[in-house]
């Protein structure tokens, strides 16, 4: 009996991380959990659409735990990055994603790993959901060779398979996303490209150029505007003539989604992905979300909004708490289980931070690598006329 329980306990812990493994065996404390439950989601505002995403969704226990674990890992990772930045172990620019976890996790849940994602500089969350381990993300933040971009990119430039970054210039990633969507269409593999941008970027000209191209050629591109109400320090009312970002696509249909509800985001993403995959062309999604930190680490985040506002969102709409409450109140998880997950995550993040701090920096030869694609090593002119460096790209 004891053996079986240990086996089950281990299997459960592993199962929570592995996609699709069903660990629904009866055991001492796990017997009472409901395997799945149905939840209501807020209806989405629609633009040029007759029907929107469904207002009811089914959440299975292991999906719920998976989402919880992912979101909690992202939250802890961002808070750790905050800590490391204040200790000056991470330097440069660091744009934290906490508060917006439901967007990244919901989107990932609504698409396939073979689909493509591209976003702007607030990219740590997406890097994680696209499959990069926390260790590598943190090592990239500290600029070490174990980092996902070999330490050469930093916070804003993280990449993974089917994840195109991590882009510094605001709005510049949207035409890229449209281009990736064209490739998807051309290659005929039924993939879509999710192109994210923020409420600040929504006023950039290149976004509208991309809308036009995507609509004209019916590209399978899901444009997602993550509206966290502030473009750096400017609130949306002061920056945009129209704050209905989901309507900004004009001739492109749009939906406005509550970005703090991971299930809502998942349903909306599924809807949008189906729409694109069926060849109807691009679609626009606005995720209404919120970031707890300031724009970046140099922004305290309270000079343009009140602490009460942040506190209110934290207490009423925090994505992780919402999911946790839903699961516990529907008897899909127990408080102890959640606590265990939290403890595991904490440990994982600690180890990752340890790795990130102790990993050596990339070797100096890397300074000139990867400028061009070279067959033979390229000579890179240096700071002096007689210094030549080798680029071993």
């Amino acid at each position, binding site marked *: 009996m004891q053996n079986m329980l240990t086996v089950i306990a281990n299997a459960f812990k592993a199962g929570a991380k592995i996609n699709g493994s069903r660990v629904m065996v009866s055991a001492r404390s796990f017997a009472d959990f409901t395997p799945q439950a149905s939840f209501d989601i807020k209806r989405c505002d629609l633009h040029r659409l007759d029907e929107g995403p469904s207002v009811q969704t089914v959440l299975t226990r292991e999906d719920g735990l998976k989402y919880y674990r992912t979101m909690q890992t992202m939250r802890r990772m961002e808070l750790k990055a905050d800590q490391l930045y204040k200790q000056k172990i991470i330097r440069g620019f660091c744009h934290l994603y906490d508060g917006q976890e439901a967007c990244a996790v919901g989107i990932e849940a609504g698409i396939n790993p073979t689909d493509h994602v591209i976003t702007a500089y607030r990219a740590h969350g997406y890097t994680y959901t696209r499959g990069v381990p926390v260790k590598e993300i943190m090592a990239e933040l500290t600029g070490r060779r174990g980092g996902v971009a070999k330490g050469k990119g930093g916070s804003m430039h993280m990449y993974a398979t089917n994840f195109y970054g991590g882009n510094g210039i605001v709005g510049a990633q949207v035409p890229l996303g449209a281009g990736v969507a064209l490739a998807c269409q051309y290659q005929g593999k039924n993939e879509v490209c999710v192109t994210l941008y923020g409420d600040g970027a929504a006023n950039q000209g290149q976004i509208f150029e991309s809308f036009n191209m995507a609509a004209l050629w019916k590209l399978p591109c899901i444009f997602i505007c993550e509206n966290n109400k502030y473009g750096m320090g400017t609130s949306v009312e002061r920056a945009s003539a129209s704050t209905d970002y989901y309507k900004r696509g004009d001739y492109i249909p749009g939906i406005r989604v509550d970005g703090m509800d991971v299930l809502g985001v998942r349903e909306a993403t599924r809807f949008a992905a189906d729409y694109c995959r069926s060849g109807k062309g691009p679609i626009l999604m606005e995720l209404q979300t919120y970031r707890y930190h300031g724009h970046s680490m140099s922004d305290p985040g309270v000079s343009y909004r009140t602490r009460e506002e942040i506190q209110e969102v934290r207490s009423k709409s925090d994505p992780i708490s919402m999911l946790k409450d839903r699961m516990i109140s529907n008897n899909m998880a127990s408080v102890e289980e959640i606590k265990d997950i939290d403890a595991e995550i904490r440990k994982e993040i600690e180890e990752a931070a340890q790795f990130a701090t102790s990993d050596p920096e990339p070797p100096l030869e890397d300074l000139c690598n990867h400028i061009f694609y070279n067959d033979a090593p390229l000579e890179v002119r240096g700071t002096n006329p007689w210094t030549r*460096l*080798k680029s071993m790209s």
Partner: protein
Amino acid sequence: MAAPRLFLRTLGVKSSLTGLTGGVHGSLGFTLLKLSPGCTAKPTAQRRHAAHFTYHPDPVPTQYGPTQKMNLFQSVTSALDNILASDPTAVIFGEDVAFGGVFRCTVGLRDKYGKDRVFNTPLCEQGIVGFGIGAAAAGATAIAEIQFADYIYPAFDQIVNEAAKYRYRSGNLFDCGKLTIRSPWGCVGHGSLYHSQSPEAFFAHCPGIKIVVPRGPVQAKGLLLSCIEDKNPCIFFEPKILYRAAVEQVPTEAYHIPLSQAEVLQEGSDLTLVAWGTQVHVMREVAAMAQEKLGVSCELIDLQTILPWDTETVCKSVVKTGRLLISHEAPVTGGFAAEISSTVQEECFLNLEAPISRVCGYDTPFPHIFEPFYIPDKWKCFEAVKRMINY
């Protein structure tokens, strides 16, 4: 005074630097970042918690009236204050300028002059410059801010195709001379790829605009006011690393420093050093080192205006000394040093004792973690000085 906080991370960097001083040769015979043994590189102690330069303030200017202690961003605010007071058509706009700007260059101006004269724009550089061109063409003195020079590229077309050529293509019927674009510029220690660039060379290739880079608060205020009054569209790059680091006594009244005039900061007879912006302070140290260690007397010139640049002062100096060293943070290929070098060799060929030397950034994107190795610091420049003297 807040010294710019440039830290090198500890152990990893130390070991790679000491590896360097020994000299490492690649298999193909190229030298990989070798510091010559004669150059006393004190890497860790020198660089660990210090900037790559020390700021040398200018002497107090007496000819412009009463002065006040200001740092670079305060001198910019003072200049803008003066112009808003004297010119009723002046308007300032850009991202986040209303609350004071991300570098506090416009603090207090909105309260003082009203929200119709100091206002925010949405996040659209192309729109900001285009809008500025229109406002200037219609008669307002438009002072646009691009939040970082790295973001100026969406506006490149507007600047090069619209602003620079307006007077020319309309046969002097229209112009946007009242436009000035201000932008923080240059490396800052932790800016990495998109907060450290020096794009003056891209714009130097475009006739019709003026480009100015000050080295400190006194120059900044005078040059900025000259740019604004100048009847041509101007781009004013402000070295962001100096915003707090550079403190001087700056006149409170308005004054102008003429454009297209380079300033000789230090007279010398053996070698001419040309730089602009932050690099001027690095070169000052190089000149001091050269004097002390090699007995070489250097003439230091701050170019100030990049386009149109003061060829006469530089050439006159090279005729006197016979050697020229130009330094800037931007990558060496196609950097503005190439233009200076080419012109000087045309004009002063027979006077040159040694090939003109350019000590600039590497031909790579501005790196994230390799910044201390990338920038042309005083050791690299000193090395160049030595080679030129021993040519």
